[in-house]
């Protein structure tokens, strides 16, 4: 929370590092099937833009 409250306001031209493809706040495209395999073998799911339940005969 302290970090969030001390956020700086970046202009678009200051976001060269933030806009790097590997800085994206999400799963990589290549991880898509890994998330499915994990949901088949683990009871927990969700909060990762993957499956939360339903859609297949798994979790």
């Amino acid at each position, binding site marked *: 929370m302290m970090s969030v409250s001390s*956020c700086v306001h970046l202009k*678009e031209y200051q976001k060269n590092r933030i806009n790097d493809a*590997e800085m994206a706040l999400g799963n990589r495209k290549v991880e898509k*099937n890994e998330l499915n*395999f994990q949901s*088949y073998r683990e009871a*927990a*799911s969700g909060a990762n*833009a993957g499956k939360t339940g339903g859609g297949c005969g798994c979790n």
Partner: protein
Amino acid sequence: MRKVYLSIVGFSLLCRLNVSAQIKQDSLPQTTGISLFKPIGQPEPSEYHPRGLHIDEINLVSSYYWQNGDHSAVTGGIGTEKVTDISNGLDLKMVWGDPKVKQNSLTVGIGFDHHTSASAAYVNLSGASNTGGSRIYPSIDWTRENVKKGSSFGIGAYYSGEYNYQSLGADVHFSQKTADKNGEFTAKVQAYFDQVKMIYPSEFIPQSTSTVVTSASGTGEGHKANIPSSPRNTYSASLGYSQIINSRMQVMFLVDGVAQNGYLGLPFHRVYFNTGKDTIEHLPSNRFKLPVGVRLNYFLGDNIILRSYYRYYMDSWGVKSNTAGLETAIKVTPFFSISPFYRYYDQTAAKYFAPYEAHSPTDEYYTSNYEYAQFHANFYGVGFRVAPPKGVFGWQNLHDLELRYGHYSQTTDLVSNVVSLSLGFK
């Protein structure tokens, strides 16, 4: 001299008026009047330059997965868990509109998996059931983005079909950026309406019926059986908030709320009681899940990106879980990176789980599916990403290529490996 002085004052006043017009929102309709501070040729903000429908990107992801273990749910918590799976997904994203004002995107996806499961042979006690199966899952999503307002709205639909399971899904999603465009709020509500085909282990099918089916993946024997189905419904709401902290760090918070009802087990999963008698697993018809996660990415120095993730999970079946992961993307060149990663996972057992021949016949709910056992797991591996400006292998349209390998092991002795390839075309 007076004329010069008045000219300068007049020029100054004209400049001040135009500066004021630039910082204040116009209350009058735009005119095409001449202004000394308006560069010639610069388009007015209100001009809309839509582009016709065109393909924005195509993504292909393929994975090969293989695992082994010794606690198959089909045979009551014992027996081989040998599985192989080939998964393929293709997404096509088309856009139209003005990318600086309002833009629509339509993403059409198709996925196809084929798996083999050694334990599926024992849906029939003789071990003669079909071990292979396929699944196809198309999807479609339409999103409308207002770039000026920093908001978007979209709807999506999904279908999945395999021999013993059909699913229809739909979702609505929304996002809104903060005024300074450094933060973004996202929300999504989703529902799945599934049908579980009631394929029982062979010893539980009345011998008198003419619709005997003994395989979770089709009989392969030409039987056209009318197998009843049971519904399973899933409703979820997902909220997220991302924030840029500084020029090197950004964070995202995620929370889902999930409610499921209906037939939540699988009808061909056996349970052996402590008396030696076997039965079909029996789970509650309701389940509530609450995962909460956080992501933090940090650009360290000039060449290293740290990608971290943590999730806490709890549900109404008594499972509590922690997930933590760290990936280090090392930019060997601006266009080639190597990313070793590690993920730790642990969970407590569900209230209704017990191993082989541990359940009592008086238990109300019971399962020996080791997905609900207590364990912890490690997943580690490495990925490679190539994204040169002239395209991968000199092919301009092949924008990026990623290759990734991971090794997974649980304290239940389940071990698996996965290799994935992703190709991005623009």
